[in-house]
């Protein structure tokens, strides 16, 4: 009896979670897939997919999205790995971690507007460039500024999982490697990096996937010089009211994300989860 009671209690705990998943994850995805099979007149059709895969515009946009998401992820990774590594060496890592996470408490839009101020013609960045004698440069609406701001926004999501896997790494492994005569580089490339790879993979998932469909930043910081699939989705839902086509692009994005998860998943899965939720 007691056992049964505990069992039902456990099931009860799952009710809110299951409801949540059903209502806000599974149902919307199904609706999206359903919607993608209708044209603008509400007739059933496969034409949306046909258009997508035969239009050079959409294919170019897809390539663009993946390319920029890749660049953003790379920039984020290059900054985050050393940061996480050094963080582990500091005396009060939790404090520093808090400082790194702090920017995520601020609304994305506010951060974007702040960067508009910093990068504008009369902004701080240009004042500094003038001060050191380089002279003002066009910073806003460049690929550089777009990747810079996107990376800035994504860094906390990359640092966290990497830091978690680095802090889990037993110092004895590093010591053993040194004792056995490995150089610093060898220790890093053959011991530390492979053992923290799960964290890196989790970080890549957390950064690459949202970067694929960034659209607010493409306009605010990129001045629509960078066009990603997010831009097209926004347009189809808000201006042309062609929800079918918008949904089709959405479905393609979901498939792309599944592929990324699959590529970066595998053995790292268990650690990745841990890294993210910790």
């Amino acid at each position, binding site marked *: 009896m007691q056992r049964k009671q505990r069992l039902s209690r456990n099931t009860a705990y799952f009710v*809110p979670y299951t409801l949540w998943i059903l209502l806000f994850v599974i149902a919307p995805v199904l609706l999206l897939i359903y919607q993608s099979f209708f044209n603008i007149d509400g007739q059933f059709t496969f034409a949306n997919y046909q258009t997508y895969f035969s239009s050079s515009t959409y294919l170019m946009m897809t390539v*663009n999205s993946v390319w920029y998401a890749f660049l953003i992820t790379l920039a984020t990774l290059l900054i985050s790995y050393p940061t996480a590594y050094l963080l582990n060496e500091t005396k009060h890592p939790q404090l520093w971690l808090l400082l790194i996470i702090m920017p995520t408490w601020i609304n994305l839009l506010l951060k974007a507007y702040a960067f508009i101020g910093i990068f*504008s013609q009369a902004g701080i960045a240009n004042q500094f460039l003038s001060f050191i004698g380089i002279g003002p440069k066009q910073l*806003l609406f460049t690929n550089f500024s777009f990747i810079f701001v996107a990376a800035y926004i994504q860094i906390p999501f990359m640092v966290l999982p990497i830091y978690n896997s680095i802090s889990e790494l037993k110092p004895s492994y590093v010591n053993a490697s040194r004792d056995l005569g490995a150089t610093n580089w060898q220790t890093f490339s053959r011991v530390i990096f492979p053992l923290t790879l799960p964290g890196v993979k989790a970080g890549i998932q957390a950064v690459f996937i949202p970067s694929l469909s960034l659209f607010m930043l493409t306009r605010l910081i990129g*001045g629509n010089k960078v066009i990603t699939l997010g831009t097209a989705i926004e347009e189809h839902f808000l*201006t042309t*009211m062609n929800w079918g086509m918008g949904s089709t692009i959405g479905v393609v994005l979901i498939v792309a994300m599944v592929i990324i998860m699959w590529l970066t998943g595998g053995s790292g899965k268990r650690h990745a989860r841990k890294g993210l939720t910790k």
Partner: protein
Amino acid sequence: MKKLFSVIIALFAVCGLLAFGAHHLQSSTGSTGSKVLNLYTWGDYIDPNLLKKFQKETGYHVNVETFDSNEAMFTKIKQGGTSYDLTVPSDYMIEKMKEAKLLLPLDKSKLTGMQNYDSRFMNLAFDRDNKYSVPYFWGTLGIIYNDKYVKPGSIQHWNDLWEQKYQNKIMLIDSARDVMGFSLASMGKSMNTTDPATLLAAENKLNRLAPNVKAVVADEIKMYMIQNEAAVAVDWSGEASEMLDGNSHLHYVVPSEGSNLWFDNLVIPKTAKHFKAIYAFLNFMSEPKNAAQNAEYIGYATPNKKAKALLPKAIRNDRQFYPDNQTIKHLQIYQNLSPEKVGLYNDRYLEFKMHH
């Protein structure tokens, strides 16, 4: 088992509360008391002092709710569940709402101020005989330039934008219809064309403009122009008037060969309930004194002829916002296009954005 029940009951309670909250929110979307008027309009599109004055004179309290795009307004009214009495769609959207049977015709016998309006802005194609709508504001699409970087008078026409000296200096408003539209106007074509070949030519022409385009942005254009971030911009007159208020170096030009002429008119959606208040408000806003006060506050051009006469000379004679007849003759009002045609415009426009 008891635990399970309590969890389920708690869930139901939460759902019930949410449903109640949603219902409460919905019914407050447009209050239903008797002495009210529910106005659904663009953000900051009426002088708040006028609303106070209206309440004092007539006793009707105006609830204002705002939208930020014609499409959003259309969707909300079509879905129902609201009780808006008046709304302010733009020209092509009036046509679309009319077709969707979302509008109620005006009872002309209850309107007292219709003779105050300029006949040029009445009886237009989107609403013949003003069966459904009373003009509220009108405006144009044009070019804003900063005289710090551009010699005054050197930009008069759309084609001037293509000059090499404006390389990386122009900002465009992120709107398919307007960007494609000015490209069409620059070629002397109709801004309502649906001919694919003409639209393709317009896109090709835009692609040649790409080196000059610094960015394609939305509302932020105002901020950028005020901060001297760009030398030239293409935007609507209403936005331009706000920019000019913020930076005295800015000027607005409506190319005389043709541009867009837009209207925002007051209409009665089929959700309306407070008809006495509606006609009181329409008549109140038609009074020259009130319309003039509103035009001065908002900064857009008033279609009310008698109100315009009451405006300060500097505003009244401002050719930037009240262009001469010759220019007005060449302006074109957007027609409501079928979804396929809207898609055509947007596809071409998206390709231009990809290109630049």
